[in-house]
């Protein structure tokens, strides 16, 4: 990410951000409106920077968007906003259909992720009748089934209770993918390789979780 800035109309949300993410697990924290969600959206091209360049594996999010999105999955805060089909299995299959995966291969991969995330018993259940935690797992399954190499999570546990927060944290922890997790829940970042703190559209701190989280907590106190 080189000299990236982004504005929403008159409002600058990111200013002069330059960094390289090479770690396996990267956490992103910051106050509301600090620019962290916009930063996350830059990583898979949901937002294209007003100025500067974002490269994913050397691919420019401005010009090679489709390939970037194949490589980078994105999990939103509110699973209800990303579950688009009425039943569980149909929703997981949605992304594979978009990728042009043949039907038999789709069925195999859907089954695999439903089992992995404890949703196999809910295959034909209406998505809106799932619990909050199950909905978030469904949202994660719908992204991971597409086989991204990296996954960005934008506040994935904000709407969840403690048990489901731990469940989703465990899922993230077990992923072999490179992950970027935007969160307000600082204990989620234990064991991460790197944490960025955003403040007023800039990276205000960047380092190990122990250093940056302490810095952030002191600043917020």
């Amino acid at each position, binding site marked *: 990410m080189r000299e990236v800035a982004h504005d929403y109309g008159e409002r600058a949300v990111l200013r002069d951000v330059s960094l390289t993410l090479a770690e396996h697990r990267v956490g992103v924290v910051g106050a509301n409106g600090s620019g962290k969600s916009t930063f996350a959206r830059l990583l898979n091209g949901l937002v294209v920077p007003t100025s500067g360049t974002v490269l994913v594996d050397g691919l420019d999010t401005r010009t090679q968007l489709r390939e970037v999105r194949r490589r980078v999955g994105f999990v939103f805060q509110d699973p209800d906003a990303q579950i688009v089909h009425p039943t569980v299995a149909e929703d997981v299959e949605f992304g594979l259909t978009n990728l042009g995966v043949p039907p038999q291969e789709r069925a195999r991969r859907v089954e695999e992720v439903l089992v992995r995330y404890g949703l196999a018993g809910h295959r034909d259940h209406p998505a809106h009748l799932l619990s909050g935690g199950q909905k978030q797992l469904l949202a994660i399954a*719908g992204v991971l089934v597409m086989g991204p190499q990296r996954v960005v999570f934008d506040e994935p546990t904000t709407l969840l209770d403690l048990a489901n927060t731990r469940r989703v944290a465990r899922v993230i922890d077990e992923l072999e993918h490179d992950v970027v997790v935007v969160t307000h829940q600082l204990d989620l970042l234990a064991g991460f390789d790197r944490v960025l703190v955003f403040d007023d559209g800039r990276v205000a701190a960047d380092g190990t979780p122990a250093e940056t989280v302490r810095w952030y907590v002191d600043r917020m106190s």
Partner: protein
Amino acid sequence: MTAALYVPGAGPVHRAPAGLKLGLLAALAVGLFVADRLEVVAGALAGVLLIGLGVARLPGRALLAQVRPVWPWLLALLAFHLVFTGWHTGTVVVLRLLALVTAAAVVTATTRVTALVAVVEWLARPLAVFGVRPARIGLVIAMTLRFIPLIAERAQRIREAQAARGADGFRFQALVPLLIQVLRLAHTLGEALDARGADAPAPSPRRAGASAP
């Protein structure tokens, strides 16, 4: 509003192609509106119930949940006909609609949404020459079925929030926060569709190879 449409099963009705079921439903609709004999219409209703409850083994409550919303209209129609045309016509009209609604409920309860959507996409394929993307039509239908209960749930939350602050009953003002929530939801949904590859113009096997479902 929050009832499940599809009821899992493995019988012959569940296994029948979605296109065949929709075709038979359309034929039944035409037949029912041509027929005006009470025994024919009553027989059709009995046949639909036999297929739904007997062959497909759907739970009665699943069909009832689909039919329940039309009861007030059926009763109103019956009352109208009893006053203006007589009991025979009224009974035929009510049984006709009841048979049709029940048959539609059997079709939706035994067919996955993706299969129904595939039929719609197949039917819409000729529109591609006018620039219409059939997959988009199918997606809109699937999303409509997905978001009706979600929006109803959010409306209920707003009503509860208003009731908690002393405003009982329906308030027109409830529409404003609901509209704002729906717009926010639509914005994120648009991003999620992009992130999950829904903007891909390349035909998928299902779409490209879609024959009659």
